[in-house]
């Protein structure tokens, strides 16, 4: 992809190389180091003391009860929280050594490199083809547009279902297809990292299964971070899992990271008592 995206990725890579020479080819190197010391919405302290490293070509899951700040933490990574009125953040999000909250960083550029898939399928009010081509056109893609759209739709396991109706509206698809269209749209620009905010919570079990299979396939090409409400989903797809919990001790509802480890370890032998109870289903 000979676009501005690639150029930017090269500079980031170069920066990362100078920062840590010799670590270029290591498997599962940390691509994003998300360290949230304190995060406020106005006077409300939403998240504290959460540090999650996200490794290359793995799936990292954020689990925890409702309101524990897992979506908030995920949305910090591509600066979606900037849109929320009164958002304040103390800490850092390092993407290949560059702080995404640096003074000179443009959040728009950050979002072009770190893709996102949302809870509700949200295709644009345009044709299936144009939905996928949207990000490519935005980045002034110079290659073969049609080939890249097809590649993305194949990548999202949607090509066979839509190849004969690329011109019909993206909103005419079923919920599960819409979500896979959104995934195709997100991977079309080949971001290195893909954030997924409860991508299956609006889908039926069959569509959920397809999206889960897709995530595991996409792991080879992308680095994925996923927020999920569904424990089984985390156990099925994630390599690493972080368990977040709510601290109500000081009258507020502040989320924090309780435990972060291999998914197997979290589900079979968690170190913390709270994790154990949550995994056993004693609260949710």
């Amino acid at each position, binding site marked *: 992809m000979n676009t501005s995206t690639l150029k930017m990725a090269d500079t980031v890579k170069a920066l990362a190389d100078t920062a840590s020479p010799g670590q270029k080819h290591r498997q599962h190197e940390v691509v994003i180091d998300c360290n949230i010391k304190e995060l406020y919405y106005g006077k409300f302290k939403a998240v504290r003391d959460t540090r999650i490293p996200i490794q290359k070509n793995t799936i990292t899951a954020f689990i925890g009860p409702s309101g524990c700040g897992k979506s908030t933490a995920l949305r910090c990574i591509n600066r979606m929280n900037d849109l929320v009125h009164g958002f304040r953040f103390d800490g850092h999000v390092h993407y290949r050594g560059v702080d995404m909250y640096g003074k000179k960083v443009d959040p728009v550029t950050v979002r*072009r*490199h770190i893709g*996102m898939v949302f809870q509700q399928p*949200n*295709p644009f*009010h345009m044709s299936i083809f144009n939905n996928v081509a949207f990000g490519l056109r*935005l980045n002034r893609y110079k290659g073969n547009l049609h080939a890249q759209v097809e590649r993305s739709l194949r990548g999202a396991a949607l090509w066979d279902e839509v190849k004969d109706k690329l011109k019909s509206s993206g909103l005419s698809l079923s919920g599960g297809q819409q979500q896979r269209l*959104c995934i195709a749209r997100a991977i079309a620009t080949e971001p290195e990292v893909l954030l997924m905010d409860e991508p299956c919570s609006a889908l039926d079990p069959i569509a959920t299964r397809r999206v889960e299979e897709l995530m595991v396939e996409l792991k080879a090409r992308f680095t994925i971070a996923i927020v999920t409400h569904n424990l089984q989903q985390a156990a099925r797809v994630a390599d690493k899992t972080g368990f977040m919990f709510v601290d109500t001790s000081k009258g507020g509802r502040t989320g924090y990271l309780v435990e972060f480890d291999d998914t197997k370890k979290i589900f079979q032998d968690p170190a913390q008592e709270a994790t154990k109870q949550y995994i056993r289903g004693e609260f949710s």
Partner: protein
Amino acid sequence: MTCVITPQHMPESAPSLSSKAFDRNLGSPRTLVSWVLSLVACMLTVMACVPLFSVLIMLIWRGGTRLVQGGISVFTALPPSAMMKHGGGFGNALVGTLTMVGIASAIAVPFGVLAAIFLAEYGARSRFGTAVRFSAKIMTGLPSILAGVFAYASVVALTGGFSAVAGGVALSVLMIPIVMLTAEEAIKMVPQRMKEAAIGMGCTRAQVIWKIIVPTALPGILTGVMLAVARAAGETAPLIFTALASNYSWAIDHRQPFIHLMKPTASMAVFIYNSAGKPQDNLIELAWAASLVLVVMVLIFNIGGQLLSRRSRPAR
């Protein structure tokens, strides 16, 4: 594995009621009051429709006759002189109305749509935005003659004469708030998650607006434009002392395009107003025909607007 309840296993039934327990009693006061109220409601509805339909029937009868008799020349000829017992038409008034509504739209659509974008996206909760929205709402109820006064003072007084441009400015004053408020509603209907998706793709604020919000809201915005056009096309008061009227000249002339825009211009509404009061039967008949044509024009724009707004309901 299926589950069937056999008669032997059926639980015992409750005691039966008399077979007439639920029959309707026509003589009871409750039923009578209900009947009377229904009848009153129907009658009042019919009475409310009488003026509406009598206007329409009169228009179709009197105007339609003239349209059939006069044929195409009604739409193309200039108004008849006082001496002519037959013939003539309102061609220049038709062109004048279309021209002035066109000028008004050229002013009102950009201003209205951009203001709507500001209201919905930039200053939604700002004090300035609230003030603008409030004054726009007041302006939709503005007596239309005030728009004429404004255009008279600003355009007619400055350019030194009645003109199609002055009429267009007066109509645009009436159109801007309608376009603005309906377009704002249409823009607000664009689902938040669609905007989030665009922001998540790395769109700047301007790109979100021009690539996602405006195209998605476009049918709704066009609805507002249609409604505003329908309103403007039927206005008489603001045109009387801005565009005035003319029995001889055309707003647009293929020999000298645009030059006539600065001259007094005929319009359908003012033509009806002027002709209906004349003693000549020929002119009165033409006024009826012009009324019918104007009503059909306004109706077409209104129906167009309704159709577009039905299409604009965002699919879920």
